[in-house]
């Protein structure tokens, strides 16, 4: 502690001429040529980036799902995600699904919902990645996509957190979200059931990714035109 204080005091002594240099806020310029930037990214830009992120995630997840479907799911069994007991893991989350409900949400709750979704999917996707590796004939493209999605999801979480901080002036919301426990990593299922579970996972994630994107776009719409958003 002493050393620390000493360090800092000495730093302060040395750096006293420069103390004022950093504190001056710079002009926000969007000029990519110069290195000096705004001290912080504007809220609009942040929202745009988050939306862009969510769009990409949705697109890739859609591609992964269709890829998986073609490879592993026989025709009669397709589009039966909610059957066989493999409900979406996020079903229990307090997230509205209908349009009217969504419209009633405030900005704050929209963001919270998005964050909730994102955070709840991080782990399952990691798990999916592991299971897909175990497949015999899983194509590389599928693996790459799922990997990409899981990475981007983490990034999205960070972005939403920053956005929340900016928009709502809230502190970082820790992931005080408990696992639903729908994941049974250890359960050894037979191949067919395993495949179906993974398939269910992918389709559910696809839907939720679309939800995230929709929420964020609605948020953006409300930023610009409050009364005309659907």
């Amino acid at each position, binding site marked *: 502690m002493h*050393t620390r204080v*000493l360090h800092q005091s000495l730093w302060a*002594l040395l750096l006293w001429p420069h103390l004022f*240099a950093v504190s001056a806020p710079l002009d926000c310029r969007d000029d*990519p040529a110069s290195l000096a*930037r705004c*001290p912080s990214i504007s809220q609009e830009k942040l929202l745009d980036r988050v939306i862009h992120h969510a769009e990409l995630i949705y697109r890739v997840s859609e591609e992964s799902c269709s890829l998986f479907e073609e490879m592993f799911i026989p025709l009669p069994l397709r589009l039966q995600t909610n059957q066989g007991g493999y409900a979406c893991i996020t079903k229990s989350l307090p997230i509205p699904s209908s349009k009217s409900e969504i419209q009633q949400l405030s900005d704050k709750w929209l963001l919270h919902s998005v964050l909730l979704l994102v955070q709840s999917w991080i782990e399952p996707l990691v798990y999916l990645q592991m299971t897909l590796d175990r497949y015999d004939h899983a194509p590389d493209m599928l693996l790459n996509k799922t990997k990409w999605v899981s990475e981007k999801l983490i*990034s999205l979480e*960070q972005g939403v957190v920053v956005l929340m901080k900016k928009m709502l002036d809230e502190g970082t919301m820790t992931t005080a979200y408990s696992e639903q426990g729908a994941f049974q990593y250890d359960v050894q299922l037979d191949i067919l059931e395993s495949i179906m579970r993974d398939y269910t996972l992918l389709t559910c994630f696809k839907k939720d990714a679309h939800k995230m994107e929709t929420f964020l776009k609605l948020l953006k719409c409300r930023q610009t035109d409050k009364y005309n958003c659907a």
Partner: protein
Amino acid sequence: MMKNDGGVILFWLLLLFTLYARGKSYSVPGKPTLTRCRSPEKETFTCWWEPSSDGGLPTTYKLYYRKEDSDVEYECQDYRTGGKNSCFFNKNYTSIWVNYNITIVAINALGQTFSDPVDIDVYYIVEPNPPENLNVTIQNDKGWPFLRASWDPPKKADTRSGWITLIYELRIKLEEEDEWEIRDVGQQKVFNIYGLQSEGTYVVQIRCRPDHGFWSEWSADVQVKVPNYLRRNRSTWIMIIVFSAVVFLILSWLLHINSRNLKHCLLPPVPGPKIKGFDKKLHKSGKSLDAFKSLDVPDFPHHTFSKSEDLLVEFIEVYVPEEQELMLEKSNDLHDGCLKSESSVSDCDSGRGSCDSHTLLLDKSGQQTDTQDSQIDEQRLGEDLQDEKLSYAHQDMVSPDMSAGRVKTWPSVFSPLPQNRSTSADQASSLEMAKQHCLSDSLLPSEFLTSYHSLSGHGTRDHLGSNYWEFNFGNKRPNLTQPQTEARHQAHSEINIFTTGVKAEPTALKFPTPRSSDYVEVQRVNEEDSIVLRPVGSNYDKHFEIQQGEEYSRVKGVDSDNVLLLLQKEAMEEEMDMCPCEQLSGTTEAHYTKFSTSPEKPTAYTHPTPQPLEERVVNGYVDTATMFTMPPY
């Protein structure tokens, strides 16, 4: 711990000391600057800095950064991957959501110097790697080759998922040139280049850029050689040359053949003056008088010029529908005034000087009153035509119902009577008649000559020397139709009315030479369809009229031979009828003057032949004035 603290304190004290000590040449390092930060794929980024003076001592550099949302200072983890004076941020340390605040510190034994902090937004510092696998091939497009360039995006850029969107730019030049030609490609990965130089060697490069970011470096050169494709063109050129040579030969041959015409077309000859009888040589020789004398036409009535008589322009347009269309120009006396008057009056006929308008007729009257002068015409024009007496005939005069065709009457024939006219009533009516007459002129066949012998015994009439007479008959059309028709169809030119000049002496009964051109004016058409003629004299007065009354004949009619029957004066007194069916009361036909309207007989002859008439007939002109006496009206 204490030892460490002591060592550190000592170290810092030394630093402080050296900071303010003016050493020999050692100093703290200069201020480094962060030159650039780049992210190749928006997932990692690297920053480079530029060190300044190192103060003579070994200097180390450190990079510290802070994320926007926290005050925690982090130090760069990777100083090697980016090369010298660089710091590499890998994926775990790169966030696209926050700005980075980066500071470089230069440290040497004497001190450290901080650079200016810089804010970095990863989104805006993306500079992708150059595109890869640039491949340029030659495609043959029907003998005209073109280049096709294809490439791949840089490996690290994730364009597939849409994470980065890249646009490309291609540049090309001939090997020996210096200037590049740049082409924008967009997001596609294939591009065609046309318009190549035969047997040229081209160099192609490609680069890319994200939406918000920097251009990448140019890729490596790709060279390609264009084959020779002009061999075929050479034969084409030969064909073109041969063809154009042939065309040129043909054109020159055509030109040669038509050289004269062409010359005439391009350089039209200047028309020389063409005056009949004009001798250029005489004129050139300076004897203009002689030259002009040569212009004399035998029939030209010079004396009238000298007297400046009112030679009315006798414009009679004769229109023969079936046979001939005779256009009557002016009379032998060409007077400017007449011409002027002609031109000044509106024509019923297209352009032909006819006494179409009453103005012309009135002009004549003006002229009559003021004879002697061609300027009379001008006066006439100016005069109030309403006042003019028109010696026309009568209301019976011409009617439009007369057959179709144009009748021209000689203006003189219709020229108004002199002012001292007996009947004023006639004047008004005459004017009307004149109008009518003029109008009907256009309608009636031109053959008709209307000449009236005025029974009023007015002065001499001026007869128009012209080729025809046109006679208009008055009301009694049915009677006259026949003879009229006959007369019409005859050429009028035959009948020449001799114009006698207006005598200076109105009283003189004598008329000038047969050559004189006196005008006869139609005073009126009386009720028997007889034309009342009277001469247009300059000094026309009643007295004169009376005295010269005998000089006028009345046209009795036109007989079956298309002969105009004129009555002698005595006969006229008795109001003879004109037409064959008309008989002047008590008159005999002895004094008829017969005017033939047949083309074959241009001369008029009297019937039953007063001899003197024949004498007067010269060149088809009949001087009625001399032959007939005007019955006093």
